[in-house]
């Protein structure tokens, strides 16, 4: 299941949605708003998340299907928040489940790496009344491209 939402989510509830006796392993990646210190020493007050929802939903569905097929997952849920988020708040959750642990762990990392490099979300740092678009990190693209030996990445 793919969910793009303004609302906070609860990890136990998200787990229960995909919990099944068939699984022995669940991997979670949770991204949160880091109390970052930027180059110019200005601290952010929070972030704003923009999304092209129709496209992001389509892109996440494709990534989810790839991950399920590649690692024989029993499930893969992705939740991504949009709108204004305060420091420490949850941004994104990836949960993968499988019979054995290696599959859920690799798949979870693949999904978040792919999402970071390719899915139609944009982050803005909030400073008081101002918003500054966060710059794309080439590191995120490089990390994703490392998967090209394992998964067909386009």
């Amino acid at each position, binding site marked *: 299941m793919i969910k793009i939402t303004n609302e906070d989510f609860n990890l136990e509830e998200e787990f229960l949605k995909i919990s099944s006796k068939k699984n022995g392993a669940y991997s979670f990646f949770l991204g949160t708003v880091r109390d970052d210190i930027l180059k110019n020493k200005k601290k952010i007050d929070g972030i704003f998340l923009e999304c092209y929802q129709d496209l992001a939903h389509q892109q996440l569905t494709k990534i989810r299907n790839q991950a399920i097929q590649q690692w024989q997952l029993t499930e893969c849920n992705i939740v991504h928040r949009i709108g204004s988020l305060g420091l420490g708040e949850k*941004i994104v959750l990836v949960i993968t489940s499988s019979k054995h642990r290696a599959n859920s762990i690799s798949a979870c990392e693949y999904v978040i790496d792919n999402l*970071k490099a390719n899915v139609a*979300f944009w982050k803005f740092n909030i400073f008081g009344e101002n918003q500054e*678009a966060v710059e*794309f990190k080439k590191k995120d693209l490089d990390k994703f491209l490392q998967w090209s030996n394992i998964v067909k990445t386009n």
Partner: protein
Amino acid sequence: MKITIKYFSWIRVKLKKGSEEFDFEKNTSFKTASNILIKKHPYFKEIFDDSSIKFFLNLSEIEDHEIILKDGDVIALLPPVTGG
């Protein structure tokens, strides 16, 4: 024919709007449409010249800029993503 253009991230901020509707003649290609836009509104030059920006037509990335647009099409201008 009516074409909607959606703006995201710094493009949305720069143009101060999330989307805009434009009128083009039938059978206009994406390339022709972008040239018309650049002539009409010089701020489009920076965008169409920026190799980091991806162009989507109805949720598919535009590979061939000669693709012919149809009435009701939705084009999206996407700066590099920064979610997650």
